[in-house]
């Protein structure tokens, strides 16, 4: 790196706003132009990635949950964000000095997790610092990950999970990496606000964002695989709820939202799909909370639901009825009930 321009706090605020506006109207060319112009003007590439590109994921997520954006819009915005990461890395590779080589890292999104911008930003930051990065992309099946790790033997796996409902799969992926002696650094909104869940699932390192992850990895390989893995709390409710997953969704659909009962209007096809998907998600967050033994996983999910409902000016009645039904159905599992109660409090806070 040549002498980076000093980073003033918020120096990128204006660029970030301009970039986000271009991303929002899916103007890829303009968005990439903004990033390149900033680089030419001397912006420090890492800061550009962290302060301009990375925030797109969270902002797009909020807009989607509040109903302003469709999932497709969110997806396309993230795609342009990923292109911008590529543009930054390419620009630096073409114009900057090459950094000293560090090691090999594999970056993967958790199976079932389709949001990859944060993971891509991490890949970008690591490439800029001289890592050889293999980016496996969205929703990587655990078998595919194991094969890749066996074949390439990276120094570390960086596992991204943007959604707590996928923590069960994240645990399987951490286990798969450890079985072949590859240490794991975990990150992403799905792991929550601190290192508690990452540690509980056996990850060796955790970072709240790409920059801090890169700083941690700066210590250089080899990284140590945690020897004593904390056993996950054995929840009988988890197995039970998992088995009843489909049944719970249908019961909630009928009893909470009156589907299939005489006299209530049936949801149209698309609405029904949406309802089933929402209920499936709710059950998956409950499952993840039971699996990792952390009620806050469910609590945070419903806190976000509360915010989204407020943004849309909708009441929480429909969701509360779903919680009622789940409580009735899972009455014999104290840990399921206490988890649902934490969710209810978060929804009504």
């Amino acid at each position, binding site marked *: 790196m040549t002498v980076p321009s000093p980073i003033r706090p918020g120096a990128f605020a204006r660029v970030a706003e301009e970039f986000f506006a271009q991303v929002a109207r899916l103007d890829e060319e303009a968005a990439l132009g903004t990033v390149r112009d900033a680089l030419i003007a001397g912006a420090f590439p890492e800061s550009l990635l962290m302060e301009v590109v990375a925030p797109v994921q969270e902002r797009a997520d909020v807009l989607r949950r509040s109903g302003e954006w469709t999932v497709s819009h969110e997806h396309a915005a993230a795609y342009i964000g990923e292109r911008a990461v590529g543009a930054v890395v390419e620009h630096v590779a073409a114009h900057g000095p090459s950094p000293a080589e560090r090691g090999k890292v594999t970056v993967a999104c958790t199976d079932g997790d389709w949001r990859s911008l944060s993971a891509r930003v991490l890949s970008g930051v690591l490439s800029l610092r001289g890592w050889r990065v293999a980016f496996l992309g969205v929703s990587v099946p655990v078998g595919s990950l194991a*094969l890749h790790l066996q074949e390439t033997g990276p120094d570390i796996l960086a596992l991204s999970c943007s959604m707590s409902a996928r923590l069960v799969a994240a645990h399987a992926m951490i286990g798969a990496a450890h079985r072949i002696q590859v240490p794991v650094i975990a990150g992403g909104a799905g792991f929550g606000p601190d290192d508690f869940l990452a540690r509980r699932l056996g990850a060796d390192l955790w970072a709240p964002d790409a920059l801090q992850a890169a700083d941690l990895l700066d210590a250089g390989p080899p990284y140590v695989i945690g020897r004593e893995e904390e056993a996950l709390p054995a929840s009988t409710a988890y197995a039970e709820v998992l088995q009843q997953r489909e049944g719970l969704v249908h019961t909630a659909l009928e009893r909470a939202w009156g589907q299939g009962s005489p006299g209530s209007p049936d949801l149209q096809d698309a609405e029904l799909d949406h309802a089933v998907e929402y209920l499936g998600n709710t059950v998956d967050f409950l499952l993840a909370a039971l699996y990792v033994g952390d009620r806050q996983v469910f609590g945070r999910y419903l806190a976000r639901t509360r915010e989204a409902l407020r943004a849309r000016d909708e009441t929480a009645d429909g969701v509360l009825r779903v919680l009622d039904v789940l409580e009735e159905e899972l009455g014999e599992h104290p840990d399921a009930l206490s988890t649902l109660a934490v969710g209810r409090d978060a929804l009504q806070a």
Partner: protein
Amino acid sequence: MSASGADDVMSRDAHGWKVPPGQQANGPDDPHHGGEVAGAHSSAPHSHEEWTALLREAGRGLSSLLHPERLIEQAVRLPLGEVADLCILFTSDPSGRPKWTAAVADGTGKPEISRGRWSQRTAAKAVWLTEILDVGSAIAEPAPGDPVEGLVRTLARREGPVGSVRAVPVPGLTGAAGALLVYRHDGYFEESDTDLLTEYAEQVGGALGSAQLYQYQADTASTLKTALQPEPLPEIEHALLGASFRSAIAAERIGGDFYEVREAEAGGEGFDFSFGDVCGKGNDAALLSGMIRQSLQALRLVERDPVSLLEHLNILLTRTDPEKFSTVVLGTATPLPDGGLRILAAGGGHPAPLLVRSGGKVEEMSGLVGGMFVGAIEEAVFHSAETILAPGETMVVFSDGVTEARNPLRSGEMLGEERLRRLLEGCAGLPAPAVAGRIAQYVGDWLGGGEHDDITVLAVQAPSAQGMLG
């Protein structure tokens, strides 16, 4: 380690190794040489049985490691703690410059790994290593002043006297593949310890042999499979392309679906595309799809017309093996002066591509519905269809793995074409790669982790001049 008391009765040379009684380098004149030494039997706080069990148990775990480097790291890590304070594995190298990988306990119980390589000159000075690697000695002991002493001091961060050391061969397919050296600050290695280390090193050698063999085969398989994987889409001036492929087999990157986009051969305009789904699954299907792709590349040298291409391919496949057939959509795209694309396509047995028009209307490329499989019967007849993509409009070609994905929350209901159309209506204005990615995401959510066929999408778009949502 609690054997510190033993220090008093052990002979120690500030420039050499600590050795068990009766084997002192300094001989009987050593002032510490005394009768009590015979009682200093314990080399470690663990009983020999515990030791043995520990290392055997650990050694068995090695065979699950298929990456040689990772295996070596684990092999030097395992003896730490109970058995040794430092463990180094030297592997022989044709260049005569042995590589070493070392693990040292850093005091907090976390092992630290480091590696390096010796020069030929250093290696030549390490007589014990030559004895193990070249002469085939079953056990060797570095003499005082051996280059390994310096390495041990550095790795173990010892300035004063060093402890005991033992080295045993790591057997390879022929001769020794390497040498395993263990070091301990306190206590010394007894004969029974050496036997155990020899046994451990044999397990390491066996696992290392398997891992190297596996790596060789994996490299071969990977080379072969690379030829069968979809090639990255080319950058094409007048079009924006996107694709997504998820194999039915979770641990695979190949499958029975294929797609390809290539710029027209010299003299032609625009580009050619093909997309198909062969019968069967797994490696056989992947091989067949590879053969079809190669055949198409050859045929395209002499023919560009979609129907003629399908006819030729049909004859070729039927004659190769009538049991092997495929659905195919293929065609050409020609850039138009206004930035649009003219698409001419022909299909055999494949779901008709969907066209995402500006404004979000989704229509089927109607002339391509149905038709016969390619490669099933020689007399098959194929039809073509033509359409124009205005700037910003997209043609989506997909395999039936998309529409036949089953949702476990809906008693296995299939996704169906209606839902795909509805999804695409909301994808107007998205760049082609985002359309392909969005379909993969939607299908993935619909599947909820359930099993599926190959899921493949190719999106061909006439780029719009400005931001798609203007």
